């Protein structure tokens, strides 16, 4: 095994982590500010991917599709908040689970109704095709590097938004004391809608960018949703920093597990068997890591509400 391959795999893990971060950031923001468990976050990811694929096919431009995906997911998110979610803030988590579970069913079948039963086509833009040389030899795919860049950029942007802007101040205030900021004259209903739409837009962005690598199809959101939940729980719910750290941890652990476990087992077992057992353990690995972390730190690594 060469050093270049190891570096490439670490980058693959980092890239997977950055994509998970985009999903997880919105989820953790919504939970932190509104205290809402949103199972339908994966549906917003799917909306982003479908919007991007449909618009990119119609216009021939991935970039217009990308803008459309953010707009469509934010609009779907705002609509979802105003029509349904708004009524759930005062309820307990169970009602939120049921309502957003119902939204998953509605969005999945609704999307199939609109776009048909077959997966859609979406490819990476010509500008980002090809690979670039890495320092120290080896090459890495440009699009995946761009994904890492976008993830990092969004993390920085969110940090600045929350620590430096008026909206961010209100979000922080909303996290710590809801009644107080309402008493201070902040329109809390609008604030919630804006935060929800922001989280949705991030999910839509993730859906569009991952959609270019994967299959744009109904049901694509739920696996991403489960992973995003793992991420925010590891990181500490409500913490953007925790989401970033958790996402990178999950991305790297998952990728390296898939890559290394069969090789390690192959030292002791015949290859076919080592492959199968290694793959089985690799698929359980992130959940094992999550259980270990929560057993040691029951509120995740960077809990915002300690």
């Amino acid at each position: 095994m060469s050093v270049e391959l190891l570096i490439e795999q670490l980058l693959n893990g980092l890239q997977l982590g950055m994509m998970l971060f985009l999903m997880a950031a919105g989820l953790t923001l919504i939970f932190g500010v509104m205290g809402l468990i949103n199972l339908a976050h994966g549906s917003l990811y799917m909306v982003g991917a479908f919007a991007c694929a449909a618009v990119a096919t119609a216009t021939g431009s991935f970039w217009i599709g990308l803008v459309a995906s953010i707009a469509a997911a934010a609009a779907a998110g705002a609509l979802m908040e105003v029509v349904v979610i708004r009524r759930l803030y005062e309820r307990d988590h169970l009602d939120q689970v049921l309502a957003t579970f119902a939204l998953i069913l509605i969005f999945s079948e609704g999307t199939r109704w609109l776009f048909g039963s077959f997966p859609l086509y979406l490819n990476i833009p010509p500008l980002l095709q090809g690979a670039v040389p890495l320092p120290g030899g080896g090459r890495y795919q440009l699009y995946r590097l761009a994904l890492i860049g976008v993830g990092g950029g969004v993390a920085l942007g969110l940090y600045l938004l929350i620590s430096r802007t008026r909206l961010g101040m209100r979000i922080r205030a909303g996290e710590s004391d809801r009644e107080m900021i309402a008493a201070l004259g902040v329109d809390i209903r609008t604030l919630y809608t804006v935060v929800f739409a922001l989280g949705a837009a991030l999910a839509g962005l993730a859906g569009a960018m991952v959609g270019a690598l994967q299959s744009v199809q109904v049901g694509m959101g739920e696996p991403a949703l489960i992973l995003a939940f793992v991420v925010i729980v590891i990181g500490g719910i409500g913490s953007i920093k925790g989401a970033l750290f958790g996402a990178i941890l999950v991305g790297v652990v998952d990728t390296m597990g898939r890559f290394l476990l069969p090789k390690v087992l192959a030292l002791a077992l015949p290859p076919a068997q080592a492959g199968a057992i290694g793959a089985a353990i690799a698929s359980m690995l992130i959940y094992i890591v999550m259980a270990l972390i929560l057993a040691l730190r029951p509120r995740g690594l960077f809990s915002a509400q300690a």
Partner: protein
Amino acid sequence: MKKILTASIVGLSMTVAGLAFAEPVKIGVITTLSGGGAGLGVDMRDAFQLAIKQSGNKDIELVVEDDAQKPELAVQIADKMIQSDKVDLMTGIIWSNLAMAVVPSVVAQDIVYLSPNAGPSALAGAKCNKNYFNVAYQNDNFHEAMGQYANKDYKKTFILAPNYPAGKDSLTGFKRYYKGELAGEIYTQVGQTDYAAEIAQIRDSGADSVFFFLPGGMGIAFMKQYAQSGVNIPVLGPSFSFSQDVLPAVGDAALGVKNSASWSHDLDNEANKNFVEAFKAEYKRLPSIYAAQSWDTANLIVSALAKASVKDKDAFRAALKAADFKSVRGEFTFNTNQHPIQNIYVREVVKEDGVLTNKIIATAFEKHGDAYADQCKM
């Protein structure tokens, strides 16, 4: 008097001749019409309905229900179709794990089941059943064909499949006929969407070819990421990731890929030409292999109904087993385990008039059966 007698004899013989047609027949179709795998089920259902319509047999009634790709739901629907709708025959299931859930109990109740797609090895071998007819393929077939074909050009193949029974059957099938060495063998996670780690290993392995079996969205994701990665080792695979339902989503990344199947839309026979034309005219799209297999299943049923009453189980099973219909796959007969003996072709993905599709370039096997028929004691 004589006249009346003749008339009544004519009338009598007409009823006898018409008997096979005049009796209503109910066919239960359980298939996947919602969720990510709905495309396969929709193609299967559309072709089935069209074939029944074209056959002119007005006495066939279809009961179609969506299994949402959930085994427990499929079992419940099967119970309903048998106990409540009182269907005479069943068909429609796309996925192996759903077939394994439904088929054993259906055939045990003496209902004939015809598989239009899945062919798990358990049902082909020791657990074969006189009421189970597979009109599609045994699961190993396409992979065996690819292993056979790979011998021609390649000596060092990298193989990968998901870590579940169909995935293991696939790699076993490939290795059964492949004589070269393996550059690597990877089992991926079920439902995995990111293949960067696997592609990096393929690049690193020094392989001269890659064989993969990743059905549904997994295959689309793999092909796109493989093409984007710039690795240009030739790719081989069974037809599932290069079928007409997914090709548009894979895009030009699929161009030139060799894949194995028992059917292609350019297969040169009369029945196939009619089928492709009729399907295109009705649904404004090219049919997939699922549509083709389903079309054959429907026509097989129609041919058997013309010979025997569905109520006379023995005669009806014999009529099915004769496979006296014009298959779109050309020559088609049933093996001793009631699985197909058919040619398996190698196809290449090409672009015709701006549409991605397949064209036959070789025949991997002629009159190919399966490896489990010997274990079937029927």
